[in-house]
Structures are given as C-alpha cells and as structure tokens.
C-alpha cells in the first residue's frame, strides 16, 4: 500500500525532484524520467537522423550519458532541455560517422507510418502529411529544420552542429520552411 503510494508520488513528481534523486543514484527516479521523455526523444532523434532504425540506440546512449553526468546538472528543473541537448548531440555524432563512411545510401528510410492501418484512422492527415514531407526533404534541410523547430536550437548552434556557415543554415531553413508550409497547406 505504502509502496504503491510512493510509486504514484514518484510517477507524478516534478522534473526537478526526479533529476535530483537520479543524480543521487536513484534508479527508480531515473526510470520515471526515461519513460516521461524517452519516447519523445526517440521520435525526435528519428526525425533528425531521417531514419527510424538507429533512434532506439541513440536515445539509449543519450540516457546512459545523462545518468553518468546528472550530478553535474546545475539546474535539475531544466532536465528536459538538458536531455534534448543530449539526444541531439548523440544523433549528430551518428550523422558525422555516417558522413565519414560516406554510405548515405545505406540507411533505410523510416518505416512509413501509413503502413499501419490503425494509424491511418488514428492519425490526422495533417500530421501524416508533415511527417512525409519532412522525410522527403534533403538531409541538411531536414536536420536544420528539426534542430530549429523541434530542438529549439539557435542559428549559431545549428551552424556549429552541422559544420556549416550560419548563412547556409539560414538558406536551408528558408527552403525547408517553404516546402513544409506548401505541403501542409495542400492538406488543409
């Protein structure tokens, strides 16, 4: 009874309390954080990578690093954005490796959500349209856009992350935004 009550408290605890406990070595608190933000982070990584297959590994790596560095997080309340940065960095590392190996054609395109019949019913057309449009963007445009709009990165951060001049990033974003808006409005 008491244990169940304590579990509920933990499940509903604030990010700050959970991050503080996890920093002190509480695995249960860390698990609550992983379940709270992990799924979102995994999908975010998939968008960034343009590939669904590696996203589980990337998000797991991000949480592993987070566990090791949590006691250095100055502001436990800000753990969500800290985790997002962590998963962004891990995804970027993957992209760099991929670039080095120059096997861009090697990766599998993300499993199309439309393959799942239940999903078609559940998901609004608009979300699907956006997802598809995003997948079809050129890599750099997609990455720049995901970092900016979903990751909340600044132009400077994106430029550094992608190893491109800020002016190029600006151009990539302009093109990505135009394409996505066009696709979205078609579905309205």
């Amino acid at each position: 009874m008491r244990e169940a009550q304590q579990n509920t408290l933990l499940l509903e605890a604030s990010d700050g309390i959970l991050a503080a406990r996890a920093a002190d070595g509480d695995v249960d608190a860390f698990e609550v954080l992983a379940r709270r933000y992990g799924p979102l982070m995994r999908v975010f990584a998939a968008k960034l990578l343009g590939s669904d297959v590696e996203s589980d590994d990337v998000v797991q790596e991000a949480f592993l690093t987070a566990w090791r560095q949590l006691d250095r997080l100055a502001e436990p309340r800000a753990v969500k954005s800290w985790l997002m940065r962590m998963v962004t960095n891990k995804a970027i590392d993957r992209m760099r490796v991929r670039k080095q190996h120059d096997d861009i054609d090697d990766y599998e395109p993300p499993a199309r959500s439309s393959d799942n019949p239940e999903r078609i019913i559940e998901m609004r057309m608009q979300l699907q349209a956006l997802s598809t449009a995003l997948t079809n963007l050129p890599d750099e445009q997609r990455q720049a856009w995901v970092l900016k709009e979903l990751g909340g990165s600044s132009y400077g951060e994106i430029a550094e992350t992608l190893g491109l001049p800020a002016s190029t990033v600006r151009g990539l974003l302009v093109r990505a935004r135009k394409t996505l808006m066009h696709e979205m409005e078609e579905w309205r």
Partner: protein
Amino acid sequence: MVDGVLVESIEEPDDLDGFTLDELSEYLDEGRTPINPAIEASPGCQMALSALERLKNVSWSMLEAEAHEAPERDNVWITGLLDNIRREIRAGRDIPLTSPDPDVRMILTEGSVRGLIRAACDQVDGVLIGRCVLAGDVTIPGEPIDVDVTASVAWGENLHQLARELRSIIRTALALHTELNVAAVNVTIEDIHTHNDGKAKEHS
C-alpha cells in the same frame, strides 16, 4: 481555396510587404515582441504568420503522436538502459565505520547513506525527497557534517511540522546506521504537490 492563395503569396515576397518569411519566423520565435507595427498591419504577413504558427503546432503534435505509438518498443530500450545503469551505481565517497578488528577496514558508501536517507524520509506520508547532500568531509571520523535535503510535500501539510519530522527521522536513521557526526540537518521544501493528482506545481 483561400489557403491555396496563401501558399502562392508566401512564395511571392512582394506580398509580405517587404518582409521575408525568415524574418517573420524569427519574429514569431520571439513571441511577437517587441511588437512590430508594420508586420502586424500587413495582411500578407498576418497570413504567413498564422501559417508558420500552424506548422509549428502541427510539428509538435506530430512528434507527440508518434512518440506514443510504440510503447512496447520504448519498453525494450528502457529495460536495456536500466540494466546498464544498475551496474554502475555511483558510490560517492567512502564513509569510515569503527571496526572491531583493527585489521578490517569498514566503510559505508556515500551513495548508500543517501539511499538510506531517501528511504527513511519517503516513509512519511506525501513526502518525496529530492537532492540529498552530505556537506563536509565525511571521510574523517568525527568530523561535523551537515545534511541538506530538498523535498516535495503534499499540499495542505503543516510545513514546519513536516520539516521537523524529517529532520528527526534523518538524525535517527543516521545515528542508527552510521557514525556520522551530524551538526545540522537542513530541509528545503522545494515543491508542493496536490493530494488529488499528486502533480507537483513545478511540472505542468
């Protein structure tokens, strides 16, 4: 097909009264402050702004919808993750214990003492401990140390009484299981959560 026209207008910079989509996007990111009267007065800009806003909202909905689609998939990596981290529990500093045998060195880890404090305090109704810091040199026997904890407590509790109770529980637990010379126990109530949904105010 108003929106069909909108798309055309977005691609035609002339209709944005001299502004670019890029500038409008930045304006939106900054929460439309400070207010730019020229943008706010331009019908073309207004349409582009609402299209940009829609795109942003739909993007987040997309991410959230897809995140909740594969719970079994998330279970797999989360289970793997937890298996991994259980193998690297952070021990922290070594806290000495008097040994009955001079040839045997006995220690407690700082991590286990923190765990002890958490477990003891979590026994109190509606209390969840956050950070637990042993301030001072715990590696020297008899050295006075402070214990600083943060806590989230249920809405409506008597905070003074609760803090007193927590202080006393921590002192008792440490006296029972360790030889630490505890000078002060400081309890900071960091969050208040409500009884009903248990949600702490900070997390919204």
